[in-house]
């Protein structure tokens, strides 16, 4: 690609808008403009220079800010569509039932929503590719603009050509009464006072402040990329564990995902605010507000060489009360209080009574976590459990069936032996149901006499090794955004021509307001000619016709 030779003799890369050395406009377009485009300080945006191979074409596609903005807008719209209906992970239905759930609850729209995969939009392949393309765009566009801008700002010349100066937004021209050297000294002094860094080259002066703010956008882009990289890394095995387990009170179980660790649920605590229901709560039909969800646990660890199942020599790690907002942290893992279920049957009590006299021959307590075969009630009476089904679900071939292993609906086949009935009587007992007597009318029956309940805690097990990386990304992003937003790059060029004419130009990438304050201060101090804002003049001229700023390629830019 050809170089562009400026009138000053400097050879510029193809695509340069303003000569790197003297600042003369190089393109026809720039020559026409009253105010030059100072984005990237007129350097060649790399992508715009080569457009040959397919790679270059792809590169140029992603380098375009227009494409970047389009990607942002598409992502934004896609993300909003995902909030129309609850996403699948918030729906309490099993995987197979989910389609039916959407159709039932949300009708035809729900069905379409589910069929299109919008109910799991954020983990869909196309949404991920969209975010991925956004990341590519951020990287490519930043590389293409940031590097030339950095070079250009680093190699800035003090002396610029008149045509450059006159095309800045703020320009000033006039005679000074004092001699040139004195004026420059005064300007330099005042600008230094205002914390500008001042460079001089003969009769030219460049005062500059806050150049680093130009790098803000690139820094925040680096932060974003680190963040996205961290998110991606979570898919790599070993970096991320997300499991959930249920532990009943009194139970000790292995922690899924956290090899070698065991958790014992000692107590689940649910506290409520003892307040009157009011306002919003009444409207929502809620009477009590929960105050605390807490599981008191003991964390155990197996000895080093122990293998799964070997629970004989568990070492206690610590006691802890896991509460919402107060997860237990251990060995890079965190255990969260996420869910609970109250009142699962733990023990059941029955009286063995004579049907006629209602007289009890004794009470037996069945520990559902460890039922015994025989319960001796003394005085020649005993009860035998023939069958126990924790979650009774009807009979099949005469055998009682259980739906799950959880005591939701316990049922027993008892054999009752008393001095009166030494042969024994068989009775099938289910909660809330009259006993079944398969072998004929009995004299005795088992009467429910109370139960003991226990609660269950839902604990989430989480390990996320990428958190520090995400945090670093976030911090870098914030630093970049802050320096890009709260600081600005101000420059003042001043040249005194041999005939005593002063040429003045100023540029600021944003916040012209404060730049003008600085200019007013230095102008008064060094008796500089008045300056004008070429855009304001433009507006005043246009106002009579259509009354507004027309869109223009902005000069207050990156």
């Amino acid at each position, binding site marked *: 690609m050809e170089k562009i030779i400026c009138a000053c003799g400097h050879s510029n890369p193809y695509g340069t808008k303003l000569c790197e050395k003297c600042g003369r406009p190089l393109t026809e377009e720039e020559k026409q403009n009253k105010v030059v485009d100072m984005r990237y300080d007129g350097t060649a945006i790399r992508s715009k220079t*080569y457009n040959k*191979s397919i*790679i*270059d074409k*792809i*590169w140029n596609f992603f380098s375009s800010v227009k494409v970047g903005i389009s990607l942002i807008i598409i992502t934004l719209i896609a993300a909003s569509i995902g909030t129309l209906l609850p996403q699948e992970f918030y729906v309490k239905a099993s995987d197979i039932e989910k389609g039916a759930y959407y159709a039932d609850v949300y009708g035809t729209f729900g069905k379409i929503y589910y069929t299109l995969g919008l109910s799991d939009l954020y*983990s869909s*392949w196309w949404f*991920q*590719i969209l975010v*991925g*393309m956004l*990341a*590519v765009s951020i*990287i*490519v566009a930043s*590389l293409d603009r940031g590097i030339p801008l950095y070079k250009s700002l680093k190699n800035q010349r003090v002396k610029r050509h008149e045509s450059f100066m006159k095309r800045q937004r703020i320009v000033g021209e006039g005679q000074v009464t004092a001699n040139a050297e004195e004026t420059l000294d005064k300007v330099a002094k005042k600008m230094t006072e205002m914390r500008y860094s001042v460079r001089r080259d003969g009769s030219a002066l460049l005062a500059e402040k806050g150049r680093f703010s130009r790098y803000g956008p690139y820094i925040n882009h680096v932060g974003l990329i680190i963040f996205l*990289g961290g998110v*991606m890394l979570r*898919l*790599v095995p070993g970096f991320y564990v997300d499991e959930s387990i249920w532990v009943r009170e009194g139970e*000790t*179980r*292995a*922690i*899924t*995902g956290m*090899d070698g660790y*065991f958790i014992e649920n000692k107590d689940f605590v649910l506290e409520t605010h003892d307040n009157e229901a009011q306002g919003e709560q009444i409207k929502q039909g809620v009477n009590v507000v929960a105050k605390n969800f807490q599981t008191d646990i003991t964390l155990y660890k197996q000895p080093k060489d122990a*293998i*799964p*199942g*070997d*629970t004989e020599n568990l070492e206690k790690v610590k006691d802890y009360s896991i509460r919402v907002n107060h997860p237990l942290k251990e060995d890079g893992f965190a255990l969260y209080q996420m869910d609970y279920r109250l009142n699962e049957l733990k023990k059941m009590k029955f009286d063995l009574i004579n049907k006629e006299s209602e007289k009890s021959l004794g009470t037996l307590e069945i520990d*559902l*976590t*460890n*039922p*015994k*075969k025989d319960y001796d009630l003394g005085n020649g009476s005993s009860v035998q*459990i023939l*069958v*126990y089904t*924790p*979650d009774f679900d009807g009979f099949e071939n005469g055998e009682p069936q*259980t*739906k*799950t*292993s959880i005591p939701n609906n316990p049922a027993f086949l008892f054999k009752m032996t008393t001095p009166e009935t030494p042969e024994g009587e068989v009775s099938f007992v289910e909660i809330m149901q009259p006993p079944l007597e398969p072998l004929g009318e009995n004299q005795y029956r088992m009467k429910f006499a109370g139960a003991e309940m226990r609660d269950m805690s839902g604990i989430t097990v989480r390990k996320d090794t990428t958190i520090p990386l995400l945090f670093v990304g976030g911090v870098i992003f914030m630093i970049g955004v802050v320096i890009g937003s709260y600081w600005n790059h101000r420059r003042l060029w001043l040249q005194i021509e041999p005939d005593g004419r002063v040429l003045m130009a100023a540029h600021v990438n944003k916040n012209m307001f404060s730049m003008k304050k600085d200019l007013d201060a230095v102008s008064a101090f060094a008796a500089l000619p008045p300056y004008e804002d070429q855009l304001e003049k433009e507006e005043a001229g246009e106002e009579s016709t259509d009354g507004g700023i027309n869109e223009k390629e902005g000069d207050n830019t990156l």
Partner: protein
Amino acid sequence: MEKKKKRLVLRTVILAVLALAIGYTVYGTATKEKVELVAVGSEAPDFTLVDLNGEKHKLSDYKGQGVFLNFWGTWCKPCEKEMPAMDRQYQIFKDQGVQTLAVNIAQTDFEVQNFVDRYELKFPVVIDKTKSVMTAYNVGQLPATVLIDPEGKVAKIITGEMTDANIASYMELVKPK
């Protein structure tokens, strides 16, 4: 020219890396949901559990024999159905160096004993009270069967119900040569 070439290579590399990263992300998310049991070909995680008679069973003690490891529960209908078939095949293969081990998932001794008595099962039945073996093998759906060869490597994983013929062929698979 040299510079241009360098730039092309650089751009190609950057774009390729980014494309790979996106591809990996999409692939990773798509496969995340599928919970896999232990990988076939890998070392079967060693464990030790106690059976109904109080005897300890340690997987590594069966090195040199094939192991037919079955995870089950009394509430699981397919488990219940395949148990008698497993018992029949156990009787045939136990003398040919294939051990059968049924791991019950954290149920009470009473229920398990009752079940074993009802079907007159002869093979050892152990109870995984703390679900740690289940966790180590990443068992989700029951029944799940893991076949372990005499070297202690996972030879095959079967989820779902099995027939007599299935079980026989699986046991054949891990029989010491």
